């Protein structure tokens, strides 16, 4: 945006931004592995890949949220090492975050010009700001009431405000991470026109998206990532949704999964029976906000979900981030209030919003975030494991220390928890051992249904294998297991059956011999083009 006409013409055709050998590691996870990406000035460059392929991390390295471990970021021909989003911003790089970063109680103009207000003798000059706002509107084609309070706007309008803010700061490189995930079809159209307008202004857009049709329609160039590595640089003309999906998966099923226990007879009475369940994830991805610009609900009145899980069976729940996987299992457990429907464990009704009741009937949930929802980090392994079982170790109203220690020691060794004594605060354990301590908590006598939401996220390879073994042990001992995972190979390697979710609903049920990564992904994306590729 900074006066492209005046820039060196040679540089204009060359890279606007280039990553050379960039790597970034988080604990045991190699989020980006030696990535080389060249992004031309004024292009719309799409970045695609599975969940966890490293797309968002690339965006965050460019925008200064993370510092790369090695490699360099070359922007406008100069090597940069941004230590904060502020520095990247000053250089002309703006990221529209997955979570919006606006001041909700201030007006649109105030948000657009925050930090670059027009002033006269130290006072804010509103008229001048409104003038500047109008010229922005002309350049971008966004129409929005400058005096509206941001809190009252729809999610889409809030994104426009963020984009206006970027343009107002003379940003020349805009990163959009899943900008359309929360938009209605109509709003997506607006977004696409806006991206076109930015391109016309010679503003480069890095576009991270799960929506492959969108990518094929908008992008000038596409980079496909897998497991932190760049696997393909390509152009939309030479790709289809199906070919992109193949590039995103592209690996052999690794043989590091324990053998599956035999699939139980489906004519048996199921242990977990879900009928007509409607959950929060079906209502659209963001709770509707009150305000003047209303967005139509994304989905028509949804039907409830139904699912049976038998003793000894592992059922996977697949879907993209935001497809409602977590919301579904949380409603089954009663962690979130289901809107309708009923859940039974071994024939007994769970009720709609009572984790306590679910536990009493034999359910256990290993939640998505062990740190925020699973463990009390400052307390000991002992207290964390025994928390739902204290009644068992109480004698005459008082906790019996020996009974508790014995209970916990058995549970911890069954779940292969290492790296401390039972008195160690769980925050000192590694991520893998923290996760295993949650297995230790639940895999006690009386458990009938185990729900694990992303149990291997952020866990080292060794612990991953232990967790796979634990899931298999659970199934073999007659538990009904429900496994949510973003890792397709895990779902294929561990589950008897996989339910694929999209927009809050089950869109496919896959089992042997149809259970493979490509089919899961195609149903998860849901493109007709991709579905056609299967045959």
């Amino acid at each position: 945006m900074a006066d492209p006409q005046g820039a060196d013409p040679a540089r204009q055709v060359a890279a606007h931004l280039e990553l050379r050998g960039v790597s970034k590691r988080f604990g045991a996870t190699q989020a980006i592995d030696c990535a080389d990406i060249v992004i031309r000035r004024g292009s719309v460059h799409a970045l695609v890949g599975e969940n966890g392929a490293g797309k968002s991390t690339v965006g965050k390295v460019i925008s200064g949220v993370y510092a790369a471990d090695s490699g360099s970021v070359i922007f406008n021909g100069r090597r940069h090492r941004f230590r904060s989003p502020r520095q990247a911003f000053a250089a002309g790089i703006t990221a529209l975050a997955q979570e919006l970063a606006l001041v909700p109680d201030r007006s649109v103009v105030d948000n657009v010009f925050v930090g670059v207000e027009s002033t006269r003798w130290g006072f804010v000059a509103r008229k001048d700001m409104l003038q500047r706002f109008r010229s922005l509107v002309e350049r971008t084609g966004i129409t929005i009431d400058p005096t509206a309070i941001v809190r009252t706007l729809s999610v889409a309008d809030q994104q426009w405000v963020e984009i206006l803010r970027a343009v107002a700061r003379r940003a020349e490189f805009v990163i959009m991470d899943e900008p359309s995930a929360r938009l209605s079809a109509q709003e997506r159209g607006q977004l696409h026109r806006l991206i076109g307008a930015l391109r016309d202004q010679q503003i480069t857009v890095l576009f991270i998206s799960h929506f492959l049709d969108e990518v094929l329609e908008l992008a000038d160039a596409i980079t496909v990532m897998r497991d932190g590595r760049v696997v393909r640089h390509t152009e939309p003309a030479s790709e289809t949704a199906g070919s992109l999906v193949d590039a995103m998966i592209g690996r052999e099923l690794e043989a590091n999964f324990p053998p599956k226990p035999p699939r139980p007879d489906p004519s048996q009475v199921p242990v977990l029976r879900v009928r007509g369940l409607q959950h929060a994830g079906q209502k659209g991805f963001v709770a509707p906000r009150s305000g003047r610009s209303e967005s139509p609900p994304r989905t028509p009145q949804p039907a409830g979900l139904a699912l049976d899980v038998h003793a000894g069976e592992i059922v996977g729940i697949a879907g993209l981030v935001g497809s409602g996987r977590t919301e579904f299992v949380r409603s089954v457990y009663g962690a979130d209030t289901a809107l309708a429907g009923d859940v039974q464990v071994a024939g007994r009704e769970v009720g709609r919003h009572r984790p306590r009741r679910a536990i009493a009937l034999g359910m256990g949930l290993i939640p998505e975030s062990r740190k925020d929802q699973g463990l009390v980090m400052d307390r000991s392994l002992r207290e964390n494991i025994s928390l739902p079982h204290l009644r068992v170790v109480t004698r005459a109203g008082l906790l019996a220390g020996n009974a508790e220690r014995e209970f916990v020691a058995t549970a911890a060794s069954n779940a292969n928890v290492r790296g401390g004594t039972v008195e160690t605060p769980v925050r000192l354990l590694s991520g893998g051992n923290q996760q295993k301590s949650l297995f230790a908590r639940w895999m006690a006598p009386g458990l009938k249904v185990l729900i694990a939401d992303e149990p291997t996220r952020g866990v080292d390879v060794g612990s991953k294998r232990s967790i796979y073994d634990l899931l298999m042990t659970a199934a073999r001992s007659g538990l009904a297991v429900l496994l949510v995972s973003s890792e397709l190979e895990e779902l294929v390697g561990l589950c008897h059956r996989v339910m694929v979710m999209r927009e809050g609903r089950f869109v496919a049920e896959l089992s042997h011999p149809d259970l493979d990564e490509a089919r899961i992904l195609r149903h998860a994306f849901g493109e007709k083009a991709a579905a056609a590729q299967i045959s």
Partner: protein
Amino acid sequence: MTDPTTQSRLPTPGRYLAVVARYGIVWVTLALFVLLAVTTDGFLTGPNLRNVLDQQATLLIAASVATLTMIAGGFDVSISAVAVVAPLVALRVENATGSVAPALLVGCLFGLGVGTANGWIVAFARINSFITTLATSFVVFGIGYVASERSILRPDGDGFQRVARTRLAELTTATWISLAVVAVAWILLAGTRFGRHVYATGGNAEAARLAGVRTRLVVVTVFALSGLASGLAGVVAASRTISATPSDDFSFVFGVIAAIVVGGTSIAGGTGAVWRTLLGAFFIAFMINGFNLHQIDPIWQRIIQGLVILLAVATDAWSRARRT
């Protein structure tokens, strides 16, 4: 799972430091006690120590139970209001009926009622507990003025003062009551299912809920108990001084919070213990006792007391920051 070689991930000097920091209040209180015993005439005598115990009784009653509230993640400033007003209500009953037992009962039930109301508002209306109890404090102080008709109340008979002033085995009944309350709070927190639920709720309420803890019930209960204990503390205080005065004086709760925080219970919730509050209270009490025995100007006493509290909270914040 207990491989002895991996018992702790901290290096030895770090582990040593951690133990010192963890039980800091024990060493510091012991050191102060020894220092005063050696240097200060009149400190290590039966009458002086018994006097300290008697003076700390009301604070210990309120603080030991308020420790549970703080560990559960709550902050109760209505302790002052309840401790001021419960004895006024109790003395009105004593004056009307002439008997002590109903007076005690009504005083305690008054505290229980206010505490339960606080807990409901915090748990179900989800209003910040500091703000909630600040607001209810004003209401309660107002009730005190109405109930007492703005005058000092005194008991009609001798029975009321015997509640706290009777001597049993050298100690006053006020001391015995406070020790009993400390014991109950200690056992409740450290030895029961409820106590574990208090820690879990304050440490991570969402994780606790998903593990089957009724977190809102826990919050209501700790505030109710805190109100009950504050009412009892107020009645014991009135029995010691044989009178009760309406006021809107918030100072009592500050002493209570100082004892809890100096003891090492975190204001962030999730960690702490009743024995810590016991030590915190005695650390401050010994300090003041020492000052008095040395006849140090009370103005300087306040300044030093303030700095000690700051130091305690800073130590907590520092050890917390090192964890992440």
